Every structure is written in C-alpha cells, then in structure tokens.
C-alpha cells in the first residue's frame, strides 16, 4: 500500500512543473511529455538503457549457457566456481561500482596496467570516455549479475530427470544436440522467468552506474534511471525539475510493462511436461 498511493500520485505530479521548494505545483497538462519529444537526452538515455538491457542480456545469457554447461561436467571445484560466480550479486552495488571505477582508471587501474604489462597495450582504451562508457558499464554489469541468472537456470537444469540425458547419450546425441533438444526445452519456463527478471532489473539498474561514474556520468551516457535522478535531485549541479523527473519515471514504468509483455508474447510456446 505504501507504494500504490505514491504511484498514483506520480501520474498526477508528472502533469506539473515543480521544483520541490515551491509550495504549489504548476499544472502544465502533458507539457512534460511534449518536452520529452524534443529532448535529445531522453532519446540517448532510452538508447543506452535498451543497449544495456539487450546487449548486456545477450552477454549474460550466453555466459549463463556456457557456465551451466561447464558446471554440468565432471570437473573439480564446481561448488567453488558456482559460489565465486555468484558472489558479486550479493555485494552492495555502490561498492561494486566504486571498485569498477578504479578498475577502469587509466593511470593506476588494473585493467590498463594489466593490458600494457601483457603487451596488449593496443587494446587499452579510455574506458570511461563518453564513447566507451556504456560498453564499460555493460561489462561491469555482466560481471556483477551473471551469477544470479546462472543460479536460476542451474536450478532449472537440476530438476530435469537425469534419465533424459542418459537416453540422449545412449542415442549418441552430441553435446550441442543435447543442449538444444533436451536442456533448452526442459528449462524453457525457468529461462523465461530469468529473462523477465533480467529485463525488469536491467531497466532499473542505478546504484552500480552512479557509483562507477561518480561524480557524474557524461550526459550522453545517461540511462533513463540516471536521467530521472539528475532531473529530480541533481547530480553535481541540481536543476530540481521534479515534475519532469516524475514524467520520465512514468516512461520507465511503461518500458518495464512493455518489456515484460514482449517476453511473454515471445515465450508462449508449448511447454514440455515431465
């Protein structure tokens, strides 16, 4: 209940101009939404948000498939690897973000120093310059959250009766074939849940981005969540546009709803019962 009332009120506030210090809001109808159409930052932040969601998601789930295939094999230290992959998930995003900010530091950060020491200096980039920052953030995000989705998918795989794999192996099916024809269909439901969770949280990622780019990410690399924050309470130089910020929040909510709906539509297919 604490969240229904504010959510409804948010729709109302998004129709106003308000800086938070004035007592009264000024009603401007759909003015904030009209303003978005002409605001280049809205478009670039939408683009960045979608980039992180789609590219980061693709990377995460490719890694999830790879790691889950690895962990199904008989190799030593499975539990250790699983725990280590998962560990960053439970760390405060602020701490992880600050660590990554230092990793990406070009002068004394381990990434640049390591590349140069390994003779791979040509790979060295200004990791946090505007044209690279979204990619760098995506790397940090993938590293941090891959374990979460891995654990979910692994749990799904563990529930597949082992007789399925045995039967497939006896038929002489290749690893790839088993993966495609047994594993994926059997974990389809769990996979869709994992992807839905990823989309919801990817659209909302905030503290990791804020910390990695502290004191302020360049404007071109804002995501929608960062843009909302910047408008509402300011990065370095506050502008205090609470009405506009809330309208942007409404857009974020719409994105979440659309994202979930799209996944549901795509994922609807016959589920194998077992």
């Amino acid at each position, binding site marked *: 209940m*604490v969240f229904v009332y504010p959510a409804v009120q948010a729709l109302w506030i998004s129709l106003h101009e308000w800086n938070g210090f004035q007592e009264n809001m000024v009603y401007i109808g759909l003015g904030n939404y009209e303003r978005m159409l002409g605001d280049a930052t809205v478009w670039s932040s939408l683009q960045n948000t979608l980039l992180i969601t789609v590219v980061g998601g693709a990377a995460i789930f490719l890694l999830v498939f790879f790691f889950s295939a690895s962990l199904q094999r008989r190799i030593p230290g499975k539990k250790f690897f699983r725990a280590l992959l998962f560990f960053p998930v439970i760390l*405060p995003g602020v701490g992880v973000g600050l660590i990554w900010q230092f990793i990406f530091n070009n002068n004394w950060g381990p990434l640049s120093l390591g590349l140069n020491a390994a003779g791979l200096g040509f790979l060295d980039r200004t990791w946090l310059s505007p044209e690279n920052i979204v990619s760098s953030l995506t790397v940090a995000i993938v590293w941090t959250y891959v374990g979460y989705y891995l654990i979910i998918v692994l749990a799904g795989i563990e529930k597949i009766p082992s007789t399925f794999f045995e039967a497939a192996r006896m038929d002489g099916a290749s690893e790839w074939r088993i993966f495609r024809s047994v594993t994926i269909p059997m974990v389809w439901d769990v996979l869709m849940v994992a992807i839905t969770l990823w989309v919801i949280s990817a659209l909302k990622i905030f503290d990791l981005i804020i910390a990695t780019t502290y004191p302020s990410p360049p404007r071109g690399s804002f995501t929608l969540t960062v843009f909302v924050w910047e408008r509402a309470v300011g990065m370095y130089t506050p502008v205090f546009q609470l009405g506009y910020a809330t309208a942007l929040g409404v857009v974020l*909510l719409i994105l979440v709803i659309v994202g979930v709906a799209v996944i549901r539509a795509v994922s609807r297919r016959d589920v194998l019962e077992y």
Partner: protein
Amino acid sequence: MYEIAEKTSRRNRRKVASTRWDRGNTPYFVLLCLWAALTIAIFLWVIGNSLKSNQEIFGNSWGFPADPFGTGVENYLNAWNISNMGGYFLNSLGVTAAAVIFTVGFSAPAAYALSRIPFLGSRPVFYYFVAGMGLPFQLILVPLYVLFVDLNLVDSVVGLVVAFTAVSIPFTVLLLTGFFRSLPTELEEAAAIDGTSEFGIFFRIMMPVATPGLFTAAIFNFVVIWQEYLLTALLITSDENRTLPVGLMSMRQSLQYSSDWAAMFAGMVIVVVPSFIIFVALSNRIMGGLTMGTGK
C-alpha cells in the same frame, strides 16, 4: 521435501558421469579458472590497496603494500572512526534486521493464505504483488518522499524500516507462496479434521514445517536490503542515520577535500566483508532462496 528431491537427482547424475577426467572438459575448466582468477584478482587488488598509503596507491598500485600493518590499521581506523563507517555499519545492521523480521512476519501469513485458502480475488492479489516487483523506484521517488514527509518518516531509521518492508513484501510473498505450495497438505487436513482453526493450523502445524523456507526468505531479503542505496539516499538526510552503501558514497564525496583514497579502499572492504561472511556461511541457502520462487 524439495531439497531431498534435489539431492536424489544429483546423486543419480553423479553415478552416470564417468569418473575419469574427460578431455573435453579442459577448455571449460580453463575458462572457468580464468573467470575465477579475474574475480579473485579484483578483490585482492582492493584489499591490497586498503593496506597502502595514498602515495603508494598512485605510485605503486600493483605492488605489495610497503607497511601493511602500519598504514593498514591507520586506514581502517580512519574509515571506521573519522568517516563514521562504524556508525553506518550499526545502522545497516539494525535497519536490515528489523526490516527482514517485519517482511517475513507479514509475508508468511499472506503467502500461506494465497497458497492454501481459495478466496475470491486471490488471482488479482497475486498479480498485485507481481506488479509491485516491477514498479521502478524512480517513478515513485518524488511522491514517496512527499508521503514520508507527511508521515514524518523522513530521515529516520524507522521510516527506512517501513520503506524496506513495504518494498520487500511483494517478492517475499511470491517466494513463500511457491514454497507453501510445495509443502504437502496431509498434515493440515489431519489437523482440520481434529478441529484446529485456520490460525491454529498456520501457527502450530505449518510454521515449524516452513521454518527452512522462512529462513531462506529472510537471508535473501537480508542480502537485498543490506545493499539498498536509492531509497536510503532519498529518505535519509543526516549523517548519523546513513547506512553503509550511502555512507560509502558520502566517503567518495569527501575525497574532494580529504583525498584519503586509502581509507576509501578500507571503506569498500568494510562494506564487502559482512556480505562475504554471510555468503560463506550461508551460500547454499542464499542461492536456494533465489531459485525457490522461480522454480516450477
């Protein structure tokens, strides 16, 4: 029940797998090791820098700390006392513990009702909780803030507990609904025949059986609330009420004047260590909690 099934299936597979090292494993194993080495190196680097002086960090960020005990102790004391990480730590602990207890306390009966007692509108209620999970905080930042101002809950740890509890309930209810569904109904049916009331069934019969699930839900919420930043940054205005993540960010702000990077690294270690300890002790339960709500 759930765990037993899991164990059996694992045991079966182990029997099937060959006991010899399969050559095809090597590339998988090497890549896993690389990823692990990367992760470990990152944390070692952070810990190493927390034991160095400021000049060492900038001049010799890769080497071993020159005087790990002298400068190290000093950095940690600076972070703990001067930057008040000690105070933030206690706040984090208190707020998180209280919010977890309330969350699980409210969610358990609701989840039980949703899973067992058929009533009109239980489906919409279920979707209401799903919607609560998807709602971006950014949307409600401003109104929530105004609401908490009206309730006089801004800048108070009580307000934080209220907010965290409210935020955590939807997911916890979903998690526990799935869990209660997985419990057998025979016990309750027997109790109902004996004439035990619904409440009696819940508290005397179900709670003891459900303890492992509730415990898992509690740990999971602990992990999530422990790292929360956005709501806290919004609702807390004074230094003494900050939690660790917000305190860490304020320490990063302070670098503008203090330039104490070494203490900053010490602060990061202080933030990470409790998560690490909890994780080492309870990693299976934490991972179990994440999958409990999502499994079939």
